[in-house]
C-alpha cells in the first residue's frame, strides 16, 4: 500500500511539474482511486477469510449444545457460558484418560522449553562460528545445512525413531524436544549465521585483538548484540514447536503427548455425541499460547527493528 502511494505521488509530481505547481498539493491528498480501492477490497476479503471462521469458533465455544443444535452458526449465543472451556481444560477425554487439555498443555510446555534452549543455543554458537571465525570447510558445511533445511521429516522418520529408541529417549518428553531441536537446527543456524555475517568485520577484529577468546567474545560482545534476531527466532520456534502435530504424535509416548495431539484425540471421538462447543473451546485453548507470545514479544520485535541497534 505504502509503496503504491509513494510511486504514484512521485509519478504525479513529475507529471505535474510541467503544468501548474499549485495543483500538486491537492493531487497528493486525493482520497480513493481505482487502484487503492482494489487493494482495499482485496485486503478486506483476506481479512474476512480468516475472521469469519474465527468468529464461528469463538461464538460456538460460548454456546450450550442446545443452541448449537438449532444450527444457526452465525448467531450470537443467547446464554453466554464458559462451561465448554472449563470442561475442555479439566475433564474432556483424550483416549481413555479424561483429565482435559491441561495434561497436553503442560506436556507441550515441557517439550517447548528444552527444545528452545537446545536448538537456539546450538544454532547460535554454530552460526557465530560460521559467520565470524575462520572454520575449515565452512562453505561445504553451510551447503549441507542448506540441503538439510529442505529435507522433510517424513523422509527420515523411521531412522529417527530407531535412533531415539536406541538412545532410550523414544516416547519421552525429552525425546520429542530433542527431535524438535534437531529438525530446526539447519534453518536456525542459517538465520543466525546470516545475521552475524552483517556484524562489521572491524568490531570482530577489535574483539580478536582485545581478547581472542571464542567464548568471551561470544558472551560479552556478540550475545548482547543478538537481541533482535533472538526474538525473531523465539517467535518462529515457539510457533513451530507448539503447533507441531507430526513429531508429537510419532515420538510422544502415552501421557507424554503435546497439546495438539491431545486436542486431535479429543475431537475425533468415535462414540457418543460430538460436543462442538467443547471442541471449539479446546481448539482455541491450543491456539492461544503462540498468539500470546506474538502479542507480548512482537512489540519488542518491531521496536528492535526500528531502533537500528547496530548503529555505531
Amino acid at each position, binding site marked *: 500500500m505504502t509503496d503504491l502511494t509513494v510511486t504514484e505521488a512521485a509519478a504525479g509530481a513529475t507529471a505535474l511539474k510541467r503544468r501548474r505547481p499549485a495543483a500538486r498539493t491537492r493531487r497528493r491528498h486525493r482520497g480513493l482511486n481505482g487502484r487503492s480501492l482494489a487493494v482495499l477490497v482485496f485486503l478486506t476479503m483476506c481479512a474476512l477469510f480468516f475472521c469469519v471462521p474465527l468468529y464461528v469458533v469463538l461464538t460456538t465455544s460460548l454456546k450450550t449444545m442446545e443452541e448449537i443444535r438449532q444450527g444457526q452458526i452465525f448467531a450470537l449465543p443467547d446464554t453466554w457460558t464458559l462451561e465448554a472451556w472449563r470442561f475442555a481444560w479439566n475433564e474432556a477425554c483424550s483416549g481413555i484418560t479424561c483429565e482435559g487439555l491441561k495434561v497436553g498443555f503442560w506436556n507441550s510446555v515441557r517439550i517447548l522449553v528444552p527444545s528452545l534452549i537446545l536448538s537456539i543455543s546450538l544454532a547460535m554458537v554454530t552460526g557465530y562460528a560460521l559467520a565470524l571465525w575462520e572454520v575449515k570447510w565452512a562453505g561445504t558445511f553451510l551447503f549441507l545445512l542448506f540441503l538439510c533445511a529442505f529435507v522433510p521429516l517424513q523422509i527420515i522418520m523411521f531412522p529417527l525413531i530407531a535412533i531415539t529408541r536406541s538412545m532410550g529417549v523414544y516416547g519421552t518428553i525429552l525425546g520429542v524436544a530433542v527431535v524438535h531441536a534437531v529438525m530446526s537446527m539447519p534453518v536456525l543456524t542459517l538465520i543466525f549465521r546470516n545475521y552475524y555475517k552483517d556484524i562489521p568485520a572491524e568490531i570482530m*577484529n577489535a*574483539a580478536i585483538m*582485545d*581478547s581472542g577468546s571464542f567464548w568471551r567474545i561470544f558472551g560479552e560482545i556478540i550475545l548482547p548484540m543478538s537481541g533482535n534476531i533472538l526474538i525473531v527466532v523465539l517467535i518462529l520456534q515457539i510457533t513451530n514447536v507448539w503447533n507441531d502435530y507430526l513429531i508429537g504424535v510419532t515420538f510422544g509416548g502415552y501421557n507424554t503427548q503435546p497439546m495438539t495431539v491431545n486436542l486431535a484425540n479429543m475431537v475425533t471421538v468415535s462414540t457418543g455425541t460430538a460436543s462442538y462447543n467443547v471442541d471449539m473451546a479446546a481448539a482455541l485453548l491450543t491456539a492461544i499460547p503462540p498468539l500470546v507470545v506474538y502479542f507480548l514479544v512482537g512489540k519488542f520485535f518491531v521496536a528492535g527493528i526500528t531502533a537500528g*541497534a547496530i*548503529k555505531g
Partner: protein
Amino acid sequence: MPSVHFEHIVKAYGAVTVLDDLNLSVDDGDFLVLLGPSGCGKTTLLNMLAGLTDVTDGRIMIGERDVTDLDPKDRGLAMVFQSYALYPTKTVRGNLKFGLSAAKLPREEVRRRVEWAAQVLQIEPLMDRRPSQLSGGQRQRVAIGRALVKHADVLLFDEPLSNLDAKLRTEMRLEIKRLHDELNPTVVYVTHDQIEAMTMATKIAVMNGGVIQQFGTPDEIYETPANLFVASFIGAPAMNLKAARVTKRDGRVAGVFDGGQTIALDDYRFRATPEEGRPIVVGMRPEHFAPPGAPLDAAAATLDLPLQHTERTGSDATGYLKFDDGLLALRVEPGHAARLRAGETVRVGFPRGKANLFDAASGERL
C-alpha cells in the same frame, strides 16, 4: 618500545600476489605512516602486522620477537580502526575495560588504567554512555582510548580520521601527534591523506601497487621524491610535471620543454650525467615559483604565460597558467591573486636548484 621489521613479506590471494618481497623497518618510537592510494596494499600490510591477515611468506619481527604466527592478542599491539569498531552494547567504560579484563589484569590496575586513559583523552564525562550516544569525534577518542589502556608497545591506526569532518580531523591530528610525543610508542599509521602523513609522521612509506615507492622522512619525500608516482602523489596542489628534453649549451645542462621554453638545470645534482636529447620530466613545486612581478635575475626558467584562473583556499591562492596543452599551477599571495585577471599574460620565474627531474621512460629520479 620495540622496533618493527617486515622481512621479505609475500602476500598472495590464490594466484594474485598483492605484496611481493616487501622489506620495511620501523625504529622504536617512530611514527611510520603507510601512505598510498586505495588498493595499494597498505591496509593488508597493517593487518598482517596486527595478525588479522595471514602472511604467505616472510617474517614479521617486533623487537626481537618473531610474531609471524602469533595470535593477535599475543603480539603486544593495540589498534584503532577506521570505523572505530566500538562494541555497541557496552558503555565507554566497558569498551575500555574489555581488553584489560580479557587479559586478566587485577581489578585495581584495570580501574587505574581506564581512569588514566579517560583523563588523557578528556572523555571522563562520557564514561557511562553507549557508542550510539557519542558524536564521531568522541567515538574516535574512545577508540584511541581503548588502544591506549592496553599500554601496548606498538600502536596501529587504520585510517582513523577518514570518517571525521575537516575541522575534527585537524583537531584529532594534533591530538594523536601530542599523544605520540608524550607516550612515545612505536606507531604504524595507514592513510591515503598526505596531509596526515606530512604532519604526523617521522617516517613515511609511500606505497603503490604493493610496492614501497619511497621510504624516508616527510622532508625527504617532499623535497626529493624518488619517482614520478611519489612526485605526483605528494603535494597539494600537485607538483607540475612537464615533459622536456635534455640539451647542453656551452657545456651547461638545460631542459627544453615541448613548447620550446628552456630551464637551466646545471644546479641539479644528477646521479649520472644525462646524454643530450634524453626525454625527461621536469617537476616544479607550485610554491617554488617566484611570485609574478618579483625580480627574476637568478631564475632557472622565465616563463610568460596567460593566466587561466585563480583559486583561493583561505590562507593560500593558486594561479593556473596555460602551459602547452596543460596547466601550470603556482602559489600566489592571496592579496596578489585578487589583482590578477584571467587571460592576462604573467611573467613567472622558477628558481635554480629547485627542480626535480625524472626519466621519462622509467619514471625514476635522475
